[in-house]
């Protein structure tokens, strides 16, 4: 808003050199050379027009003491009028075109950084929270744009000050020095002020953040407070944090209220000196009334420009820091890169061969300049891991958390890059496939279903935008039936809200199944949900799964009883190694790893377990 003076802005540690940053920023403006030329031209013209007006006014007033030529005076006043008009028009074009240039540059910047971010593999997104990336793409670029706008404003101010000061020097050097005497005071005030303001602002923001999180938390838990009738308790706490924020922000606001009065004081001293020295000069006959006029006007004319020049450097640094954060994001190289062969296949047969796989979550170049937590990431997930999966086979992977189940799925989809060994599909190294076409042929159903804040229809056809309504309904039908769709307010056209929140957990899973079926992948990778869903939906999910894995090479990270009993083969992973494999019956007979896992994770889903639980509770009830 109004006073964009950067008084409370942060300082950042930077890695890029100023020169390199400026060069890159300028490169973005290069595409708008013509508009930039227009901006610069009008900027200069505006400054000229604005600085000529007071000079001509001085001339007019001086005329009153000498020739008093009416015609000449009328001419001068008319010229000033024209200058006023031109100054306004020039300024209009400057602002209009600079808004366009800045708007376009910010747009290009956003587009570039967004492309760069979306090009990254998942290791990047693991490292950086979504909120941070969003703020870099949107907020930093906006701040950068603001600085750029502020930049042209400052240059314009600077030009006016320079032109008028040169003119003033030719008229009266000592008085000019008095006016310039304000400069160090304005700078010192602005700088020392900035220091305090930053500190106070930080305190104020913290206090406010406390209030906000308090309100957020208590309103989220309002039902608990109401059930237990604890409103008074919350209210008393609120009074405390609200008052604390009031005091902190009042202190901050007070600091800001000192700035302008102090600067006005500097101005007042300059005025007194001008009147004093200028008065003596006039009494001595060396100075005219018009000169007085010019110097007095300059005090007012220079006030804001000088302040904005004083704040230029910190502001400029803020803008550079914003651009640095953006460039750092653009410059981070993606880890997963497509091989040179760029093979495109219409479909896979689905024979997978993993040989001597080595993998650990190694960090790429750190874009956010943060300390990388070392140690944990370096632990090898797979060391010399091999696995063959036949065409059309369904394979369940079971194991404790951290056994490498999800990692395996994520390597097959090339979400991460592995360091050693090879994965081939139908005999071709997966690194040689065209990355996007490859991923399209692999259907992935993540553990937590993700849906878009869009219509149900668009969600189902997300991977195949050309799908017809019939195909969509077919896919939903395959995924456990489409009758529930009719219960939605607008059927297929219902907007299912952020993350599909209008739907139940189970329905979300069904939609994801339908989405995957519509893509008709050659290979299915399914990370089963652990969340329990209502029994009705549960049976549908089973049906959907049954249809989906039929005739398809499928890899399932299993959490459901039904799954482990229906797949062709189960492998038990432990610390990145296969410790057992076979089907359910064989492995149960073996009575080792799998049998243990089964008793911990799967057995309680079975009917037999429930019967036992009932007995157990009965005994408990009787004992009590």
């Amino acid at each position, binding site marked *: *808003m*109004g006073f964009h003076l950067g008084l409370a802005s942060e300082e950042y540690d930077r890695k890029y050199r100023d020169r390199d940053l400026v060069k890159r920023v300028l490169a973005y403006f290069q595409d708008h050379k013509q508009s930039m030329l227009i901006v610069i031209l009008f900027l200069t013209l505006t400054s000229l027009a604005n600085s000529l007006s007071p000079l001509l*006014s001085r001339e007019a*007033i001086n005329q*009153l003491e000498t020739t008093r030529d009416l015609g000449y005076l009328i001419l001068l006043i008319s010229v000033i009028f024209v200058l006023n008009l031109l*100054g*306004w028009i020039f*300024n209009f074009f400057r602002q*209009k075109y600079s*808004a*366009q240039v800045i*708007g*376009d540059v910010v747009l290009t910047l956003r587009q570039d950084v*967004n492309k760069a*971010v*979306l090009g990254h593999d*998942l290791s990047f997104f693991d490292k950086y929270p979504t909120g941070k990336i969003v703020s870099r793409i*949107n907020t930093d670029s906006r701040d950068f744009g603001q600085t750029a706008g502020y930049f042209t404003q400052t240059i314009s101010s600077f030009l006016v000050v320079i032109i008028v000061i040169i003119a003033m020097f030719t008229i009266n050097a000592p008085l000019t020095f008095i006016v310039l005497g304000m400069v160090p005071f304005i700078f010192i005030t602005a700088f020392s002020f900035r220091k305090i303001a930053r500190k106070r602002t930080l305190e104020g923001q913290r206090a406010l953040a406390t209030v*906000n999180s308090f309100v957020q*938390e208590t309103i989220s838990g309002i*039902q608990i407070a*109401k059930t237990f*009738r604890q*409103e008074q308790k919350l209210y008393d706490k*609120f*009074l405390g944090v609200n008052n604390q924020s009031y005091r902190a*922000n009042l202190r901050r*606001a007070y600091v800001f*209220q000192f700035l302008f009065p102090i600067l*006005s004081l500097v*101005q*007042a*001293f300059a005025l007194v000196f001008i*009147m004093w020295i*200028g008065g003596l000069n*006039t*009494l001595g006959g060396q100075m005219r*009334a018009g000169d*007085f006029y010019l110097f007095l*006007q300059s005090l007012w004319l220079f006030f804001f420009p000088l302040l904005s020049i004083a704040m230029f450097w910190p502001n400029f640094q803020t803008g550079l820091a914003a651009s640095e954060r953006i460039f750092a994001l653009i410059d981070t190289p993606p880890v997963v890169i497509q091989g040179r062969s760029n093979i495109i296949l219409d479909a896979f047969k689905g024979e997978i061969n993993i040989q001597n796989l080595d993998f650990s979550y190694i960090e790429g170049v750190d874009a956010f300049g943060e300390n990388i937590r070392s140690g944990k990431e370096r632990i090898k997930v797979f060391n010399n891991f091999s696995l063959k999966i036949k065409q059309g086979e369904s394979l369940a992977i079971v194991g404790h958390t951290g056994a490498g189940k999800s990692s395996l799925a994520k390597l097959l989809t090339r979400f991460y890059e592995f360091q050693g060994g090879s994965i081939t599909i139908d005999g071709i190294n997966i690194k040689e496939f065209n990355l996007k076409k490859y991923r399209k042929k692999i259907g992935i159903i993540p553990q937590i279903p*993700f849906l*878009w804040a869009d219509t149900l229809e668009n969600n189902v056809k997300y991977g195949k935008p050309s799908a017809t309504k019939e195909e969509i309904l077919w896919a939903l039908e395959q995924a456990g039936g489409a009758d529930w769709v009719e219960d939605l307010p607008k059927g297929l056209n219902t907007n299912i809200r952020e993350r599909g929140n209008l739907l*139940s*957990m189970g329905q979300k899973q069904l939609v994801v199944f339908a989405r995957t079926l519509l*893509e008709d992948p050659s290979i299915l990778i399914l990370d089963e949900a652990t969340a*329990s869903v209502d029994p*009705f*939906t*549960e049976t549908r999910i089973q049906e959907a799964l049954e249809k989906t894995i039929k005739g398809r090479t499928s890899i399932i990270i299993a*959490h459901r009883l039904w799954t482990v*009993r229906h797949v062709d083969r189960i492998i038990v992973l432990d610390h990145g190694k296969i410790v057992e494999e076979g089907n359910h019956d064989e492995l149960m007979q073996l009575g080792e790893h799998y049998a243990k896992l089964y*008793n911990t*994770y799967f*057995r309680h889903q*079975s*009917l*037999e377990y429930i019967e036992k*639980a009932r007995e157990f*509770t009965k005994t408990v009830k009787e004992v*009590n």
Partner: protein
Amino acid sequence: MSKNPRDSDNNLMMEFMAEEIDPFSNVRQRGPKRWLTAHILQGSNKIFVLMIFSGTIVYTVLSSGIMIIVGNAIDEFISGNSTNFALFIVLIFAFGVASPFLHMINGLLTETLAQRMERDTRHEFYTNLLGKSQSFHDQQRIGDIMARTTNDVRMLNFLISPALSLIFESFIGLIVPILFIILFFPTQLLLAPILFTIFFLITLRRYVNRLGPVSGRLRMEFGQMNAILNETLSGIEVVKGSATEDHEIRKYFTNAKGYRDAFVEQGEIMARYIPLLLVAFAVTLGLGHAIFLNLEGGGLEIGQIIAYVGLLSNLRFPTFISIWTFAVVRLAVSGAERLLEAMSKESDIDENIKGQTVEIKGGVSFKNVTFIYPGSAQPVLHDINFEVQPGQTVAIVGTTGSGKTTLTKLISRLYDLTEGQVLVDGYDVREYNLESLRSQISYIEQDVFLFSSSIFENISFGKTSSIDQVINVAKEAQAHDFITKLPEGYDTEVGERGVQLSGGERQRVAIARAFLADPKILILDDSTSAIDSKTEDKIQYAISNVLKGRTTFIITHRLSQIRWADLILVMKRGTVIAQGTHEDLIRTSEEYRAIFVKRFDLEEDQLLKDVAVV
């Protein structure tokens, strides 16, 4: 609310809404402007406002006065008269120092007022939120409420400082120079400032009207851009998996382009701010006019010309500052509207303070209950009938959206039904005192909410208790073991900054909390996932403990709980399609049977094998 609200020592929430503590409840109904005015002028604020007004006038007079002194001084200097030289310098110095000093005091007062405004409106809003019924809170998204308590309340601060204070300063800044011209200069010199004022007001109005919608659009586009990007990045795995990066890039571009267009449009409107031209014209016109008078011999000295033009130059500040002050006012008023809108939504539920306050036993029956959400046409519940004896356990099963949760909310009157009757111990729930009824009914939510304080405080939230009592109930709820393993035991902070508890652990803390509250009717939405059988066992045990001796409604996915319930309600699309015990239903209900047959799909011998392994 500047009267210390701590004075109220009555605990009942009703009190918060009472007249003497909430003095703005009447003003709220009269629109945002009246409400804002009432806040600005409340209590000791009036004196502040008065001081700010007079302070502004005095320092504007001082800074305009300087121009007059300067003009007179110059005239004397030109005429070679130096007798008053020192006096002039001292006067200019005095005025020059006094003006910023007053300005500062004024600023401090204004800020105090502004911060008070923020504090008091937030206080009013929050108090109001606490007093709202649960049905209000159910209908609000927390993000929306937060936007109001943060941004909208903040805007009211900005409304005072800088917006209104600057507008007032601008107004005085227009009036005072004109008064000075009337006092010290030939009347005809009013021409330039009067013409300026007229055209300024007209063009300013047009400007504000044009800028408003564009600024609104700009903010909206930015919000959208954030939302879209956030969504894409949250779903990055889906984007990559479906290889739709290009689609997402295009989507973002379309959005960013919308923002860019609004930005450029706003830039153009701001560039076309005509008052800046007008003020330049006014100064030049004044200069020309004054020079003309001097030439005519109208008795206007050169120093006076300088003073006059100096006064006109003072108009630059109000002109410049108005580029955005009015936009802030507009934002603040719409912020106030949003706050009032939320506050004016009153509860539909009749509290029935005179109603029964007896201790209930826990018998519940529904008779032909139909419920339609206010403002909706479709019934969520349709013709529901069932009966529960005190102490029984009812399992409710059905897909999400079949009305399970809504049904339970009718018992504690979080909603009032549309048709039929809900009876507790044979009396219609509407005959009870609402406070009394609700105090005997507890909920354990699906997504258990814990406050970010210690485990001890969370468990004893509803009832001040000793540590021994808390440990006892924690043991009953199977929570004691995991709590003692936490770094600081019962003093461990949970929630945002502290230890993250798993779903199963949170649930057991909530069960402990319910033990302490000891409700007669317990409603348990138990849909959390449990991954291993140990946790599952513990939760089962805790639940079987908590439902002893009270009527319990369990919304559940756990077949084990469904099976041991005294009554099972099978719901579909807002109706109960079947009810009875497990043994009844497995025989009579096709739908119910489908769950068990489909879900397990097991051979007899398979079952036997499993048993053998165990």
